[in-house]
């Protein structure tokens, strides 16, 4: 599996689009920090930090869109699926590569805002909790993106569907704060992932949120394994 992770990381490192997006993120973050640092309170800074975390998630469809679609389109799926790795290991390898790439870009983008936040009086533990929250949400979204990629043979189709899925989650979050029905709210809360970030941004590492996001990750990875197995069995 190490070989699979390494190959995928090298593939990410060779995609210009990812560099452009990462550069844009750092630039965007820099502008926001510069504009607000001297005028706003640390609370406002936390809000910006949270927004940036959401934008970072947009990076994920770029990472996951080609994970399986490119293998299928290029015919290398035959080599990969007939190797000694079984399907769960293949999916896990792809996940680890995407998660490592996401973590690297995220940490690079958030390092300066994190330092500024700490300089403005926010405790390191709070910043750390936000980073952990972001990593966990990223992990869940990566698993979702891999699942979508496993369903398709077209890279850009996988990208569009993953972005649409993320948009759906944001809509769920917005609805959740605006519906009056408690039952409906409870259901929406059960499937919302971005709302969980609020817990981390308040400086708490909520075990229930950690468990929830890890469960979402595991669930979508399992879905990806199953969809690939079904795809092979149906052929």
């Amino acid at each position: 599996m190490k070989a699979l992770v390494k190959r995928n990381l090298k593939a990410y490192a060779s995609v210009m689009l990812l560099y452009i997006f990462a550069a844009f993120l750092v630039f965007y973050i820099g502008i926001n920090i510069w504009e607000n640092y001297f005028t706003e309170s640390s609370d406002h800074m936390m809000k910006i930090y949270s927004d940036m975390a959401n934008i970072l998630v947009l990076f994920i469809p770029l990472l996951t869109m080609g994970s399986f679609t490119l293998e299928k389109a290029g015919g290398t799926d035959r080599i990969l699926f007939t190797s000694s790795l079984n399907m769960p290991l293949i999916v896990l390898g792809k996940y680890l590569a995407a998660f490592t790439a996401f973590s690297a870009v995220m940490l690079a983008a958030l390092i300066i805002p994190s330092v500024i936040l700490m300089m403005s009086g926010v405790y390191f533990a709070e910043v750390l909790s936000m980073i952990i929250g972001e990593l966990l949400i990223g992990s869940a979204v990566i698993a979702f993106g891999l699942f979508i990629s496993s369903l398709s043979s077209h890279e850009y189709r996988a990208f569009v569907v993953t972005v649409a899925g993320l948009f759906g989650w944001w809509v769920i979050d917005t609805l959740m704060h605006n519906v009056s029905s408690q039952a409906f709210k409870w259901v929406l809360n059960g499937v919302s992932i971005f709302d969980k970030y609020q817990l981390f941004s308040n400086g708490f590492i909520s075990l229930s949120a950690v468990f929830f996001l890890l469960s979402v990750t595991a669930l979508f990875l399992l879905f990806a394994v199953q969809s690939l197995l079904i795809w092979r069995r149906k052929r």
Partner: protein
Amino acid sequence: MLNVKDLRKYYGKTTALSGISFHISKNETTAFFGPDGSGKTTLLDILSGYLLRYRGLVEYTGFRDQEPGTYSKKASYIPAKTVLYQEMKASDYLEYIYGINRGKRNLNSEIRKMSELEETGITSFLGREISDLNLLEKKEMMIAAELLARPSVLLIDDPFEGLRSDEIDRMSLFLRSIQDKTTLIMASDRLMGFSDLCRQTIVLNKGKIVSSKDENLFMHRKHTNSIRLKVFSSPEDIRSAFQFVPGIGEIDFQMSSERNLLEVVLYVDTEDDIRREIWNAAVNFNIPIYEMRTMQVSPEELYLQMTGN
């Protein structure tokens, strides 16, 4: 080594393989030939464990696990028309394939140990990117990468596809040098390059085996020689005249372009020269022979006959 019995594969209403059976022994090189759509790639997909849904029996003797999809651990597969990871170097590709095939030993020492790889010159292009390699180098790299994990069976789809004739010779030499290391199973729509390689050849057409059991296209002598005559006679007289000539099998008749003459094809199933006996038989039956030509049916012609082209 490999037993396949009554293997069937359907894609919806289309039949890709309709009940094929064969046996391949250990370290025996076998080639499947057939035109496009004959079921070759589907067959390799099944033998490699890539396709999981089929009917019939695929049994690798000596493999612990016979579940489709798990015997791929011993059977490596090199598909045709693969778009490789262009961003990788050849050495990275070897490392990647060795890794996903769970090679246990040190990769560099394994490469050094395989003297066959030296012959291909692969060590000279290990540092180059895949996008810079020519087709032959890419194919050699793919085969070398799979070989490093020492598979029991190596399945190669169209090993000579897209190669120039000099490259075909080089690839053929390479494949010959690795024959004793693994059971080589290949598929192609053309015979070029395979003549000195295969112990067994199996011809597929429309999902069925159309060659005889244990027949090798390249070793075939029976019915591959024929003698064509232009005679002034009737088919009945011809049959009477040649029925007792040893070595003559089937007899075909065609209309000659020359008026009143009959063209006769005598299929010969002996390697002896029987032209004298044919001449004598014709004289005895008072059949004038206007022309006699010996015809060698090449493996390619035989293949085309089998596949109906």
